[in-house]
């Protein structure tokens, strides 16, 4: 096993990985940009090294600086987390060349799966259903138009290197096709320096369901059930569930078999996620494979009891999987809400700024993975994820109720967040019934709803109380002032039973 692991990431996922390192007795090495010197992941790590200025490209995306930190610290392995360099085959190769174990699949596997055309070809060859569309990228406007007519509108245009909602357009009618194609090509080139474009069939109100898989170096491949990730805004997940409320044993066995087949077809190792689109007729289509830990892995941990990061590390160290397929139960139901510093009323724009006060929920069934603290300044340089809140219950109903309770306990002051949005989602009748799709937020949620509430009396009362509050800095606790303590004590001493027999 490794003695030291460098975590090539920041925020909640870096802290998540540090926690497992602690649990298994491995020293954790954090890296940080100059904007992150006081970040929580640095404060919680065993060691930390600066890897450059605030922009990611100069720090968290800078392989040379990261490998130098790894060398300096004596780390033997690198955990890339999600985002940043986690799906960068070159970085995985550079790690290997530097004698470091990259905690993830082989570089060639990462490469195959990050190229959507290649991945698609592999899936077709292995009998895994893919979305009808051009088998490769649509080279020219004419080719793309022809494919679209073949598969029928609506179609979706997608930049080959895109993701996270960038470089995507839905075209519903032939007439608007040309303009949309040009726009995506421009955006794709500007964002990814890659103007290749896919054309695929577009589905109205599909579900987005992914299967968690694990493969060890000994050739065992298992699945850890699925996650329902349909609740998205701007193509980014905000609420995830495990298991999916639409799943039955028949569909699950077909989807998990396809996911395991996908992993086997590329000799996959480590943790991976196979994303599927599921249409209204319960047909499923391969979307992509993520060759790293997912943001939403915690809900799988809650229902299976398995520490996914621990398995990742052990597999990378050459150990076989600690669990067999038949030993993995899907116990109860878990929901995750991603709490972002963002402004749902203003196109979900990131809302960086100082976190003046923050209270995270606690209690039965609640897990919190928070990346910030009171006084932290949410940076405009990075993903504005503040925390992940996960709730477990014996049933989906119990998990949902517990999540609502947790969201009510959650208090974040100073930055705008999507907390109110989450409450709307979890209270929605369609969500309650499990009738969700990727169009859910657009169809069912009004980010400006609380603007409609015009009862401001409590706010006025609070502000007035603050104004009247003695500005001595000391809070008034009127209650204790009138008593003679020693007398009270003697009285209490005679009768009080509080310490008895708990």
């Amino acid at each position: 096993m490794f003695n030291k692991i460098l975590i090539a990431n920041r925020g909640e996922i870096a802290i998540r990985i540090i926690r497992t390192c602690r649990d298994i007795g491995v020293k954790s090495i954090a890296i940080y940009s100059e904007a992150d010197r006081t970040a929580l992941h640095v404060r919680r790590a065993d060691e930390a090294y600066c890897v450059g200025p605030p922009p990611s490209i100069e720090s968290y995306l800078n392989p040379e600086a990261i490998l130098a930190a790894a060398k300096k610290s004596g780390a033997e392995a690198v955990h890339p987390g999600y985002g940043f360099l986690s799906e960068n085959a070159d970085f995985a190769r550079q790690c290997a060349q530097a004698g470091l174990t990259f905690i993830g699949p082989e570089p060639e596997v990462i490469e195959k799966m990050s190229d959507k055309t290649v991945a698609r070809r592999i899936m077709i060859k292995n009998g895994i259903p893919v979305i009808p569309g051009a088998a490769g990228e649509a080279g020219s406007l004419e080719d793309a138009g022809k494919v679209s007519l073949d598969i029928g509108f609506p179609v979706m245009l997608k930049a080959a290197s895109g993701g996270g909602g960038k470089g995507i357009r839905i075209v519903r009618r032939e007439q608007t096709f040309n303009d949309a194609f040009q726009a995506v090509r421009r955006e794709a080139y500007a964002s990814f320096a890659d103007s290749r474009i896919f054309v695929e069939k577009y589905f109205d109100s599909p579900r987005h369901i992914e299967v968690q898989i694990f493969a060890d170096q000994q050739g065992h491949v298992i699945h850890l059930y699925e996650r329902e990730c349909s609740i998205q805004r701007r193509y980014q997940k905000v609420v995830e569930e495990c298991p999916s409320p639409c799943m039955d044993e028949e569909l699950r066995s077909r989807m998990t078999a396809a996911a395991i087949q996908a992993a086997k077809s590329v000799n996959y190792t480590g943790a991976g996620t196979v994303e599927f689109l599921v249409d209204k007729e319960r047909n499923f289509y391969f979307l992509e494979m993520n060759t790293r830990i997912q943001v939403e892995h915690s809900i799988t941990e809650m229902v299976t009891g398995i520490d996914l990061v621990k398995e990742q590390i052990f597999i990378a160290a050459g150990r076989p999987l600690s669990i067999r397929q038949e030993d993995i139960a899907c116990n109860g139901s878990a929901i995750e809400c991603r709490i972002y510093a963002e402004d749902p009323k203003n196109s979900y724009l990131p809302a960086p700024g100082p976190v003046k006060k923050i209270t995270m929920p606690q209690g039965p069934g609640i897990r919190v993975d928070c990346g910030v603290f009171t006084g932290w300044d949410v940076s405009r340089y990075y993903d504005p994820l503040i925390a992940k809140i996960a709730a477990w219950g014996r049933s989906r109903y119990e998990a949902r109720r517990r999540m609502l309770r947790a969201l009510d306990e959650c208090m974040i002051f100073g930055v705008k967040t999507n907390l109110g949005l989450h409450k709307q989602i979890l209270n929605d009748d369609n969500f309650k019934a499990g009738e969700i799709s990727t169009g859910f937020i657009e169809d069912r949620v009004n980010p400006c709803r609380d603007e409609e509430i015009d009862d401001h009396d409590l706010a006025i009362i609070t502000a007035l109380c603050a104004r009247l509050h003695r500005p001595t800095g000391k809070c008034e606790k009127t209650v204790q002032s009138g008593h003679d303590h020693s007398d009270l004590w003697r009285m209490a001493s005679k009768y009080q039973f509080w310490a008895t027999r708990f």
Partner: protein
Amino acid sequence: MEIKAMVKNRLYPVTYGMEGEKIRITIEDRTYLVDAVCPADGFFSLLINGRCHDAAIEGGDNSYTVLVQGRADQVDFHDPRKRRPTDDLKRSIKEGRQSIHAPMAGQLIRLLVQPGDLVEDGQGLVVLEAMKMENELKSQGVGKVKKIFVTTGDVVKPGQELLIIE
């Protein structure tokens, strides 16, 4: 005691006075008997007719941001006893007027309005490309575009004033 409170461009008349250890507060025609204590700096616990409300608060003097029942609101007071009430009012009015700032650094790729245009609540004003996304900034109320400080193609800093609506 009398005071005026401004929330979301609406002015509320407020009267208040102590009643034992509680405060009697009347907002418009609604009266509350409030037991308010401060459990920790920046927090208030209100008990009104048995009901508990936990609130967080920032600010001071006459301007506060309050977080209660999961909602954040800006509350500004205008004290009629003050010598120069106009100062407070001016500020309040300024709060009503919209000054559109860039929420993030980015590039201005489209202007959707011109000076003099009447805008609706929610109407798009400018499109800012930031974080590789095109983001439309919207008006938060009705008004008239008074001034525009930027042109298409400008790279703006976070917080930079883009336009004014009155």
